[in-house]
């Protein structure tokens, strides 16, 4: 079986790209499979600047082809972005095309290579960027979309509906994502599978980072991911500062990720940016538990990373995906308002037995439902079915 993956970036970058890269690497190890990943030379989704050299590289058994970005984000993008966020139903298809062009990363070389590819199936992820929106229709009869979508204005665009409807099939991270897509566009009858994502084994980490951040002897809780409004980070910081002012808990909140909003780093809240994978694992291991405040998740790999290092999680109950994971795993708690948040944090910070119990449940669930063997089997069966 010849399989191609197309993602905007390759490497330890965005959640969906990371998950797809990990899957591609695992598949490439199967002797009968020929797996290739196409990406641009960019590493930053904010600018799409060419950071890497173009050309073919090998990462273990996986072949990665990188192509130069022709155009990245411009001033026009933010105007179009605002326009779409203000109301999708009034945005005409031409404006939508314009938006996806400026959303980037545009790469004619990537487009040509994918069109010339002899792969049986081409998987595009995530849906929101130019390589999926513009290139997938060129190979529609072989294109499988991995939307990695959550409930957001862009998903409702008519162009997205057209893309999904003309694709060969869809791969979802969770049942909640599948339900969302089927509610939003008439794609329920297309071949699809709920695959879920696997995580790489946690590394030993780099304990130096704990000393550098002054966390070596302080208890803390952790939040990993983009630091922005839509991910619920500001809401979490508000909750956390209120909690600290009302109760005597000694813990600090560590936000790991790149901030796109201004948050003051102080005694209560520490921001750790430019953290590599090793440091991230160390920070996760040292935390008492992980909080994911986002209501907009298509899978949330970070929950599984937390369970893998033996800590429980606390999630926003309004996110169907994370709430379902937590309830099925019984690997953490949920909150739907400040009082519940306060009580859940107090319970998790003060009760080590509960923490360990929930973490153990989470780890078992992750191994049982999202172990690599099971994911690879599901993926292979789906490929056989649609190819």
């Amino acid at each position: 079986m010849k399989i191609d993956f197309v993602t905007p970036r390759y490497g330890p970058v965005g959640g969906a790209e990371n998950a797809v890269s990990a899957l591609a690497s695992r598949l490439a190890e199967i002797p009968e499979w020929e797996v290739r990943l196409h990406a641009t030379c960019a590493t930053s989704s904010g600018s799409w600047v060419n950071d890497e050299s173009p050309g073919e590289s090998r990462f273990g058994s996986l072949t990665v082809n990188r192509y130069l970005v022709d155009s990245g984000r411009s001033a026009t993008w933010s105007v179009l972005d605002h326009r779409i966020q203000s109301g999708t139903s009034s945005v005409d298809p031409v404006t939508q095309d314009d938006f996806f062009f400026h959303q980037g990363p545009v790469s004619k070389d990537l487009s040509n290579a994918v069109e010339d590819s002899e792969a049986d199936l081409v998987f595009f992820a995530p849906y929101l960027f130019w390589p999926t929106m513009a290139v997938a229709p060129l190979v529609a009869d072989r294109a499988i979309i991995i939307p990695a979508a959550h409930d957001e204005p862009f998903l409702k665009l008519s162009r997205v509906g057209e893309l999904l409807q003309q694709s060969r099939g869809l791969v979802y991270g969770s049942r909640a994502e599948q339900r969302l897509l089927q509610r939003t566009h008439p794609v329920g009858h297309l071949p699809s599978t709920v695959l879920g994502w696997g995580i790489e084994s946690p590394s030993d980490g780099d304990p130096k980072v704990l000393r550098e951040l002054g966390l070596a002897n302080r208890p803390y809780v952790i939040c990993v991911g983009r630091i922005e409004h839509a991910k619920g980070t500001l809401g979490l910081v508000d909750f956390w500062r209120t909690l600290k002012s009302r109760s005597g808990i000694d813990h600090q909140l560590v936000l790991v990720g790149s901030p796109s909003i201004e948050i003051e780093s102080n005694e209560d809240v520490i921001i750790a940016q430019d953290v590599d994978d090793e440091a991230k694992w160390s920070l996760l291991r040292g935390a008492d538990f992980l909080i994911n405040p986002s209501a907009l998740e298509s899978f949330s790999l970070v929950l599984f990373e937390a369970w893998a290092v033996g800590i429980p999680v606390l999630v926003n109950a309004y996110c169907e995906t994370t709430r379902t994971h937590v309830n099925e795993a019984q690997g953490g708690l949920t909150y739907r308002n400040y009082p519940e948040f306060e009580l859940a944090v107090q319970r998790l910070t003060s009760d080590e037995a509960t923490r360990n119990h929930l973490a153990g449940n989470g780890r078992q669930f992750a191994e049982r439902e999202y172990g690599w063997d099971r994911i690879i089997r599901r993926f292979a069966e789906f490929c056989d079915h649609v190819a």
Partner: protein
Amino acid sequence: MSDSQSDASYFKEVVAEIEAEARRRSSSGEYPRALLRSLDEEFRRWVPDASLENGVEDTIRAIEAAAYVDPAVPVSSRTPMGRCVKWVVRRLTYFYHRHMAQQITALGIHITRPLRLLDASLKSVHRRLAALEDRLDVDAAVRSELVAGIPTFSSHEQFGEVLGAHFDKVPGRVLIGDLLEVQLLGTLRNEGVDIYGVASTDTSATEAVDVRHENLFDHLGDLQNESLGGFVLCGIPDRGSVNEQLRVFRLLLSKCKTGAAVAVIVVHPETWAAQLGPVAADLLHGRPMHAETWSYLLAREDASEVTVIEASDSSYCLVTANLP
């Protein structure tokens, strides 16, 4: 009690404790109203509407919370002097702010009142509808208890080949639901049918490829009209109420393209009554419907080549037809 059961009850206990204590603290006035409102504002800003399971009520509460205007302007400042000046200004202008705040709050109350009335009216309609459904049929829980004894028939061995030929050259994908027997899906795929399944979650189909784990009605509700090349209806004809059988049939027809092929697998009412006994036969009267009834319903839709094929032991049958 097994380990997993004790785990589950421990988890439920912790969650219930937190929820109960959160409700108690909220109602006791432990949290200042303005504080909760400001915290809620950012927290709920990014919650998708579809996630609000108590949508109308939650939205009305949010409007009410936002409509309350606190006339006590904050006086905190980085310098004591600043705080003092702000406090004096607040004292001097309090009469004005209070007057304005009262009017705005009153406006908010007037806006939310009709919404509350609409919500109450909607809830009343739902209650009446539920009562009406109860009168038409036995309660869903009782029904599932009564039909629990119906075995799943191995229809793939009997009808796999016939269905393979029936769905040859259909104008689109074929849906099979409510899928109870995953082998039939596999058999039809081996026969070359481009088919996918819809199954409620607790079936043997959990791990099968291209199977949606959701309620068949929900799935059909999201599907575009004229998007299917055909369907195999099973499960619901043996287990659903008459209403459900007719509703799912109508929905499936609307989702089929011109020239679609259809099939219904149904247990004979006599077999069904013999297996389940008189209680189920009395309480679940009118179902499963006879093959003649399905043939009649299909004929009314101008379907052609309506055929009934009996299983070898005559316990169930397959009804096939082609839509115009």
